[in-house]
């Protein structure tokens, strides 16, 4: 499924990387611990988190993630936004909680891994 379809279905607001919405989303991962994402997220995953600081951008690029959804209406910090634009990372925001965002993604057919890798 393309990022664009998810943005539309969930009513996400795109804060950076709006030209990259044709990216394929292969799965999803939800976590607020950066090492946990490094350990378990896979290339092409959409990452759901409440972290809004600069370092989420590096985690997304290092793991070739499809994009980041910030929950609970949290906005990316200014430096995060700038870095994301530089690195071509798609940042999206939702007023919904992680639980709700993940539930809706699951309904759309997006799946998580088994946590093994």
């Amino acid at each position, binding site marked *: 499924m393309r990022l664009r379809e998810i943005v539309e279905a969930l009513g996400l607001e795109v804060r950076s990387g709006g030209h990259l919405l044709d990216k394929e989303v292969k799965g999803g991962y939800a976590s607020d611990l950066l090492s946990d994402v490094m350990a378990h997220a896979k290339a092409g995953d959409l990452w759901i988190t409440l972290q809004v600081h*600069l370092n989420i951008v*590096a985690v997304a690029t*290092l793991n070739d993630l499809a994009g980041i959804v910030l929950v609970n209406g949290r906005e990316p910090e200014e430096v995060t936004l700038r870095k994301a634009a530089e690195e071509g990372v798609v940042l999206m925001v939702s007023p919904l909680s992680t639980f709700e965002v993940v539930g809706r993604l699951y309904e759309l057919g997006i799946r998580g891994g088994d946590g093994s890798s």
Partner: protein
Amino acid sequence: MNAAYSETFFIEGGDFSRAGAAASRVKQILKEIGLDNRYIKRAVVIAYEAEINVVSYAQRGRLTLTVSPSRIEIVVEDEGPGIEDIELAMQEGYSTASDWIREMGFGAGMGLPNIRKNSDELKIDSRLGSGTKVTAEVRMEGPGAVP
């Protein structure tokens, strides 16, 4: 490629605005060499976690990446407080990180365990009040090893 390729990156302690820069360079170089993604992924996790440890705890450090036909070696050496109990630090969930580091989603006690899981060989030397040296190796064989 026969001779080993080697490059060193410097890491500034406490500077979270640049955290991940060395790991990004490691990823870029390994991609340019043309290694298989499964090796790159493991090396990147090692580099990132070791870099974050330097940023979180040390004054400064350096990461040296060495790629030879059969292995990727990552050595991260820092000037820092050292690790009091390495065995304890290797335990998942154990961390001495400050509150503000934890609030950013670091300091979950997963760094060294992540490094161990992704290394075929891992050596940690630490001297209290002086610094820590992490030597990690990813072995490569068959398709996807150095072309």
